């Protein structure tokens, strides 16, 4: 069932979601994306560059956060623009699960163009990890 622009209002909230990230998630993402930077799998390497522990790929966080919109919308091909700023690393300790909480809210609607801009917010332990996370999508009229 497609979401129509007429069903939405500025400020409307998308269903909030949580996502679990663990070391295995990053190993799998490294393989699939080709980003083998050791700060995403080697604790020694991560701490040697001043990080508290291994951190998730920013792009894994970005991909996960975007699902709040694409799962709600159904059609990920309707995304016109997607951008984030990485403000805090998502630390994933060995044997632990890091939970990312994501919320989304309609920032603006353009009825003429048939598009909506969604503001996204992502946090771990109540600390935001992204800023200016924003997705523009095309909607059914």
């Amino acid at each position, binding site marked *: 069932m497609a979401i129509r622009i007429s069903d939405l209002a500025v400020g409307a909230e998308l269903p909030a979601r949580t*996502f679990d990230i663990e070391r295995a*998630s990053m190993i*799998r*993402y490294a*393989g*699939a*994306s*080709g*980003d083998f930077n050791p700060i995403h799998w080697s604790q020694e390497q991560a701490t040697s*560059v*001043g990080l508290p522990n291994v951190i998730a790929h*920013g*792009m*894994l966080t*970005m*991909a*996960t956060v*975007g*699902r709040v919109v*694409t*799962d709600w919308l*159904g*059609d*990920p*091909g309707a*995304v*016109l*623009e*997607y*951008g*984030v*700023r*990485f403000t805090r*690393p998502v630390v994933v300790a060995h044997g632990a699960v890091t939970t990312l909480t994501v919320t989304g809210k309609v920032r603006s609607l353009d009825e003429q163009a048939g598009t909506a801009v969604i503001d996204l917010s992502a946090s771990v332990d109540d600390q935001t990890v992204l800023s*200016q996370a924003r997705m523009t999508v095309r909607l059914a009229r």
Partner: protein
Amino acid sequence: MALDQSFVGRVYPATAPYEVGREKIREFAEAIGDDNPVYRDRVAAQALGYPDVIAPPTFPIVLSLGAAGAATRDPALGLDYDRVVHGEQRFSYNRPITAGDVLQVTVSIESIRAAAGNDILTTRSEVRTADGELVVTAFSTLVARGTAVQ
């Protein structure tokens, strides 16, 4: 030392053609934990009007990350890659990447800044089909921590 501003606008040669495979899309979708059928099932993708399965919105990084290495690892530019963290990422889509696309990436240096002792480099990666159709543009901002300090 701060990066040389004269590199802004530099365009690197297009990458070799990359053919987008259905199984690569599936692998990537699984790695991000996304079970949307439009990434796996051709019939589901066709029901939404696509000729074949489409790739997740962040899939272009698979092409652009390596391609941007032409700039980020350009010895003449001299970015200290060991000190680099990903600062920002943005994608602007003309259409979703679709299985069967044969794509090439042209990377250019969009901007160079220094702030709080960090070098900040933004690359622009235009992802086009062999026919020249622009599919998506990716902007990546990398921050080299502490490298702009003398």
